[in-house]
């Protein structure tokens, strides 16, 4: 059920589109897991980039992420493991390869690259 502090999250995954609600204080990855959606992740600290997604619509709070740079936001990348919704969202998942490529190009930390 969606209340005033919850937002509708729509994920575009390789297996198709999935939707669920997420409270503004909850990490998107955790809410997805609670809805039975399995997404990649390793560190759960906003560090390793395994959970990377591309934000297609909405706003995400990444203040709990260990490594999230203004350049990441500008390029539209989000880290689902430590990202909280500030609005309804549409996100393309499984973007780790592209986010690592983006970080490497800018000389920013890109674990597993």
């Amino acid at each position, binding site marked *: 059920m969606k209340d005033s502090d919850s937002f509708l999250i729509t994920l575009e995954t390789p297996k198709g589109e999935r939707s669920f609600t997420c409270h503004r204080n909850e990490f998107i990855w955790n809410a997805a897991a609670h809805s039975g959606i399995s997404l990649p992740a390793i560190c759960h600290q906003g*560090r*390793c980039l395994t959970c990377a997604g591309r934000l297609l619509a909405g706003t995400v709070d990444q203040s709990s992420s260990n490594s999230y740079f203004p350049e990441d936001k500008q390029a539209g990348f989000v880290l689902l493991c430590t990202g909280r919704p500030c609005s309804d969202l549409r996100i393309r998942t499984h973007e780790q390869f592209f986010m690592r490529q983006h970080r490497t190009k800018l000389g920013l930390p890109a674990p*597993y690259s």
Partner: protein
Amino acid sequence: MSNGVTPVAHGDVTQRVGVEVIRARGVDVDKLIKMLIANAAAEFASTYYYYTILRMHLAGHEDYKEICEDARLEDRAHWELIVPRIYELGGELPNDLPTFHNMAGCAAAKLPDPPTAVNILTLLLESERCAIRSWIAICDMTFGKDPRTYDLASRILNEEIEHEAWFIELLAHERDGKSIPSGHFRRGEPGEAPYSKNRGFYNP
């Protein structure tokens, strides 16, 4: 009959049978090397932060200091255990410490603000959890395909799981006044590392 292994010519030192056999079994060796370097960097960083920074700020908690030191020395053992495997697989570490630090797959365990025992123990707990997730990813990737890396990773995983249990026990006590026993805390000399140093371990 072919076993799917790329032939290595007699006397050829540019290829490794030890690599080709695991590649033939489905291991993405390049990816594995990157993951091992990320994990090695995290172990190396934690042995720095745990001791040099965090332990120094646990004044008045001598028992926490000792356990922090055990975890620090065992993380150092993990670093030393896994680095040779990176080279065996054909990888190498960067010749630059800041670059290596930035390759870590887990967050640096920097001193929290304020540096209270509760905040430090919380940080240590979450560091161990990241290590568990990182090493089990290696185990998943190598299980049934690369027994050597799997064996090394599972030894490290054993100790990281014990470290998590220690910090759950300590944090529950310090923060919540609750008893959540680790169930097995027993080390001899500091940094005993019963799994990653291949010593006999306590098993009643």
